[in-house]
């Protein structure tokens, strides 16, 4: 029996294929439980969980909060635009203060890449030490690993051994394409290693200005037009286009973006078995036509539903690992 041995969950690269499948196994059970009339478990009874969100979030924060509460944890949550940084307190000091209140699991979202790893490792400095477990709910443009896990779980349930069994060995052979702003996307940076570890082939599709400088480093192939991506892929994960990218001059016009990279009704007509994911929030009419979001092929709401189950599984595994130690 495989054991989950991670104290923190900061990056998708931490997880082995076995870790993922174990998480999915628990998530499957929790998903059944969420559909039952019994609404509360005690797996995390007595465990103190703090949600520290230094950046706006609705979906992820609510999802984590529900997951932790359903497991019986004591949950405290705060959202702070720029944290106390505006008051001159460093992130480390803020977190050390929270730690001093004897928190077991800290679920944090932060606007800067690497904030979680910085807290977890404390490079070479002598004073203080972060004692609890840290779960990454999104760090800058680096990673959003629980989003990656829930995306993978959603696809795994649909296509993998747990679903139609089309891909009986993880997601080996699945063709998966992320569409849109890869360069600035933490969702993409977590999706890529997770899907690859499960055996999927991963591609990206979007304008050159929204691609990371080195695609080889991420081990993905590139499509320059949505039609090509649709032709190739079994599933698309369509990312949100931020209006900021227009202001930065990275996209000339939305009209041109939609024409080259928007997912349209015609794509689903052309390929009815294509699965559509989107991490939300969606811009209807931009990265996907409204009809696409609501189509039978769209797994958007099932992603959200599975998000709670996956986060429950992860919290349970991390809490168990803490007691084991």
């Amino acid at each position: 029996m495989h054991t989950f041995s991670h104290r923190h969950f900061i990056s998708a690269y931490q997880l082995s294929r076995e870790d993922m499948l174990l998480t999915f196994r628990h998530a499957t059970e929790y998903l059944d439980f969420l559909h039952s009339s019994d609404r509360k478990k005690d797996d995390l009874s007595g465990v103190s969980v703090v949600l520290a969100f230094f950046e706006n979030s609705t979906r992820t924060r609510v999802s984590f909060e529900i997951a932790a509460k359903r497991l019986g944890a004591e949950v405290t949550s705060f959202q702070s635009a720029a944290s106390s940084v505006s008051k001159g307190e460093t992130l480390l000091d803020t977190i050390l203060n929270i730690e001093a209140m004897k928190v077991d699991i800290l679920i944090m979202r932060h606007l800067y890449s690497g904030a979680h790893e910085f807290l977890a490792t404390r490079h070479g400095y002598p004073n203080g030490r972060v004692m609890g477990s840290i779960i990454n709910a999104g760090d800058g443009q680096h990673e959003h690993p629980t989003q990656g896990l829930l995306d993978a779980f959603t696809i795994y349930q649909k296509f993998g051994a747990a679903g139609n069994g089309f891909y009986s060995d993880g997601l080996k052979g699945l063709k998966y394409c992320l569409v849109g702003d890869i360069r600035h996307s933490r969702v993409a940076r977590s999706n890529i290693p997770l899907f690859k570890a499960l055996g999927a082939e991963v591609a990206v599709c979007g304008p050159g200005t929204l691609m990371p400088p080195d695609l080889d480093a991420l081990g993905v192939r590139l499509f320059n037009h949505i039609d090509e991506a649709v032709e190739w892929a079994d599933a698309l994960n369509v990312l949100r286009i931020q209006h900021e990218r227009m202001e930065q001059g990275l996209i000339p016009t939305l009209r041109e973006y939609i024409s080259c990279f928007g997912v349209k009704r015609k794509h689903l007509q052309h390929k009815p078995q294509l699965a559509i994911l989107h991490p939300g929030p969606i811009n209807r009419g931009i990265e996907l036509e409204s009809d696409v979001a609501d189509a039978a092929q769209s797994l958007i709401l099932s992603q959200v539903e599975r998000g709670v189950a996956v986060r429950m599984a992860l919290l349970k595994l991390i809490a168990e690992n803490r007691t084991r130690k």
Partner: protein
Amino acid sequence: MNIYFRNIRILSPSDTIDSQTSLWIRNGEILHCAPNEVQTDADTIVVEAKEMVCLPGLFDMHVHLREPGQEYKETIETGTNAAANGGFTGVCCMPNTIPSIDNAPTVEYIMNRGKTTLTEVYCCGAITKDRAGKELAPMVELLEHGALMFSDDGACVSNPEMMRRAFEYIAPYDGLLSQHCEEHALTEGFAMNEGAVSSVLGLRGYPTVAEEVIVARDIMLAAYCGNRRYHVSHLSTKGSVELVRAAKQRGQRVTCEVTPHHFVLTDEAVRHYDTNAKMNPPLRTQADVEAIIEGIKDGTVDAIATDHAPHAVHEKELEFQLAANGILGLETSLGLAMTYLVHAGHISLARLVELMSVNPRTILRLPEIRIQVGSQANCTIIAPNKEWTVDVKKTRSKSVNTPFQGFVLKGKPIYAINRGKLWHCDC
């Protein structure tokens, strides 16, 4: 300060004695320097120096001593102590002080503070007022007060017209302009080198081309303005090495320096968001490191400079994006250069002396150091084969920001001697 080295070797361009020599320094002056032994007096320390080599005093032409203005990071006293501890008998400090070195009183202040220290302190004046790139600083006045070169270090002179004017203005004095080469339009919000590692870490990258477009532009401007003297600060990319090499081949008076961290580390050191690996220019790739070493070997690179940049813990112990750029350099420079250049088989110890002592002084037009009877002793005694482990707890700097903690190095400074003072290096 009276010290006698028995069986030392002397390695200095005009004075090399590559056999066992007795070297007696008394009251700061070289009294004896020959193979034969002499009887010393009672107040002379005698050092068995069979494993040691005497070099002309090391010179670091690119340091940040932080005074005036940011004395919480470093002062001229602590900075020169760190310099002596690393074997340096001379440094040239960059103008990003507060106020910046764009006025004569600040030059005077710094030179005065460094008047009695073992390590000599020289100034690099600003090219423009407040290093803002808008109006020329009074470079002639700065020159007259002792500034040895000019740079807006850290704030590259972006406007080519301003840089052209600077070349033209300083031409009658044949002054040296130096540049921190960074096209800011290409580096906004950067945190590290742009490439494979930044793609995975989700950090905004600083592309190599942002350095190279300025190196190329300035080389062209320097040529256009009548083959002006130009020095590239802390060059970090393969493309920049090629640009400088080509300019030298054309006969341009272009020189450049590299830092130890740019020939020892790559952007892999940033992989875990270690802010002690954050600096500007950022750590590059293996291909850049190899090109820099090639440039060091073939003479394209003139000098090793540290870009010694102390920062307080609270400025480094932060999210990577927010952490200050820069690392300590003075106490690890010789050890890193010995280990990664000399012992790695890339260059000879004689070439290292050029890079770390002779060339920086020549570029800055300081007098040649002689190691001969009758000269004032200005020298660095090193143990080229001594292994040691970098321990930042021993630093004489006020700050501790180094990515080299725990590195095992081969080659260590033992004494710095200058201005009648002796420093026993313990780094």
